[in-house]
């Protein structure tokens, strides 16, 4: 690891943080833009730079999620559930600190797992076929029951509506258009960025402007946020969030190893599991530091874990990992089992750069945190127009078309109506995020098993996940004792 590689990591971290903070600039998009920047770098410097971009964009995504209810990355969606309520309660700095420390922790642990256990864990990834993936998706969907809020039936309606809207686009098997009604822009489906930004950020701006006009008690303060009285994380807070962070890291590592799940599903899954395991004193969804830690630790654990199957068997575990493959190949490295023998210096260089990236992420995040938290002091009349602008820029840049922006606005308005009438936006997003992968896996599984449901019994991992789904639903439906 040379000085130039360390500079590359820090450069990547700064770029990644910027990308992460701005909504709409997704991690894969940032990586795609960053790959050409590495042409003149050494292989270690190039990979270190890209690792920095990826890691920091994951951590930076929490900033907008906490301060503006605008996830910088779709994977930060779950961070908004508790981060934004914390900011409104006057605990923005505490939420940002929790997000940062949980991010770094999840990332560090996953990196160590990558270093120590890559080969043995990669074998598990190879066992995940379509039948197993369908079972994992059913397991993930079962968490809709946990996140439905006060009305289970309305939560299910929202989740199923998300699944329905996820079917818009080309049919994954026959490639015939579904509910696109002649719009070519819909062939790839409704953009995920449009859905997350619309449903969370634009909806929140509509809620804010309504409160502003109604001059309710809620926004009688100058900023719309309660003043920050306490900015410190205490030992008691850290003791509360440690078990959650550990669980979230484990879930994130699992989501990273299993190809296709990715950070968004990993973070949502972790939030749902931790919410279900909450104690009587926890207040998930109302502004609890545990909720922020649950989402952020899992989100950041996904990337290093997704490199496990990439390094060990050449199988990328996420979109970001797939783009990293192109960067590897650009610099003459073919990922796979032989990479440890053919390029040991490169692999160990990458490992060191990943640890340096985690530390640099901590330093950059800690320095920027105080500055970011000042957003809460800005009056809503100044914030709302700029957040609306960010919403528009983010969705516009994703596909370079105004169609995505119209979709975002429509979904934002739908989200506003859903919130007003008690339908969960959270379960909608779970259904929408999981939908495409669920349908694809289900179709593949049906073909693989020749449409025989009994064939699932020859897939023990799938059986385990299906059993876990049944147990999870039973647990979620059981009334909680207080």
């Amino acid at each position, binding site marked *: 690891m040379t000085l130039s590689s360390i500079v590359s990591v820090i450069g990547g971290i700064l770029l990644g943080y910027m990308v992460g903070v701005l909504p709409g*600039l997704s991690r894969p998009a940032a990586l795609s*833009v960053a790959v050409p920047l590495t042409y003149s770098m050494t292989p270690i410097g190039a990979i270190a730079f890209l690792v920095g971009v990826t890691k920091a964009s994951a951590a930076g995504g929490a900033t907008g999620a906490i301060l503006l209810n605008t996830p910088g990355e779709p994977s930060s969606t779950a961070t908004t559930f508790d981060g934004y309520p914390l900011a409104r309660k006057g605990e923005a700095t505490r939420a940002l600190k929790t997000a940062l420390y949980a991010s770094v922790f999840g990332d560090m642990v996953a990196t160590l797992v990558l270093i120590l256990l890559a080969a043995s864990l990669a074998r598990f990834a190879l066992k995940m076929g379509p039948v197993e993936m369908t079972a994992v998706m059913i397991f993930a969907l079962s968490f809709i029951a946990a996140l439905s809020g006060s*009305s289970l*039936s*309305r939560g*299910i*309606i929202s989740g*199923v*509506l998300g*699944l*329905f809207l996820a*079917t818009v686009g080309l*049919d994954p*098997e*026959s490639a*015939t*258009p*579904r*509910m*696109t*009604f002649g719009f070519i822009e819909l062939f790839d489906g409704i953009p995920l960025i449009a859905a997350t930004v619309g449903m969370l950020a*634009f909806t929140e*701006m*509509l809620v804010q*402007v*309504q*409160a*502003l*006009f*109604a*001059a*309710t008690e809620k926004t009688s303060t100058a900023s719309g946020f309660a003043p920050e009285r306490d900015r410190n994380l205490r030992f008691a807070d850290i003791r509360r969030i440690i078990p959650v962070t550990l669980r979230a890291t484990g879930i994130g590592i699992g989501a990273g190893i299993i190809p296709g799940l990715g950070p968004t599903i990993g973070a949502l899954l972790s939030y749902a599991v931790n919410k279900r395991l909450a104690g009587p004193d926890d207040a998930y969804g109302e502004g609890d530091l545990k909720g922020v830690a649950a989402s952020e630790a899992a989100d950041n654990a996904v990337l290093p874990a997704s490199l496990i199957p990439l390094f060990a068997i050449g199988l990328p575990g996420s979109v970001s990992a797939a783009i990293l493959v192109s960067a590897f190949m650009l610099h003459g490295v073919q990922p796979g089992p032989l990479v440890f023998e053919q390029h040991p210096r490169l692999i160990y260089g990458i490992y060191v750069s990943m640890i340096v990236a985690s530390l640099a992420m901590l330093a950059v995040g800690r320095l920027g945190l105080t500055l970011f938290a000042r957003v809460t002091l800005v009056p*809503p*009349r*100044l914030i*709302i*127009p*700029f957040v*609306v*602008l960010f*919403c*528009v*820029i983010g969705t*516009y*840049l994703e596909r370079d078309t*105004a169609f995505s*922006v*119209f979709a975002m*606005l429509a979904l*934002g*308005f739908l989200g506003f109506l859903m919130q*007003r*009438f*008690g339908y969960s936006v959270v379960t909608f997003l779970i259904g929408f995020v999981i939908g495409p992968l669920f*349908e694809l896996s*289900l*179709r*593949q599984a*049906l*073909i693989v098993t020749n449409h025989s449901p009994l064939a699932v019994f020859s897939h023990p991992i799938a059986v385990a996940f299906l059993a876990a789904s049944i147990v999870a639903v039973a647990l979620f439906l059981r009334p909680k004792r207080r």
Partner: protein
Amino acid sequence: MRPFAEFAVVFGASLALLFIVIPAGTVETDNFGLSPRMLPIVTATVIGAMSLLTLVFDLLRAAPNEERPAGGLRGVILLAAAALAGTVLVDRAGLAIGGTALVLLSSLAVGERRPLALAGMGAGGLLLLLLVDWSGL
């Protein structure tokens, strides 16, 4: 009254999906796996069934209606209209001009009338958009 109105809207929407949107927007194929219509039909049916269940639960519980803020909807309509107009301008005139107009329109929609503040917001928005344009993102 409200549970019935809610049921009418959600159940009606699911029927519209089942009998108008899905048949008009999908075609049957003879592929080996699932029909392209399968998942949309199942999801629309579940929405309809769950709306019925919601009605039953609401009637059984007879819970008092949650209080929702009645005022302020004018602000929601103004901001939504400003965002829509700004997006049309982004589409027609490009990100820099349309985006700046969007910031100004949104500012007016939320009630900002001070000329200096409006000028500052517009200039800030334009600067940000030029930065995005310059960075090539």
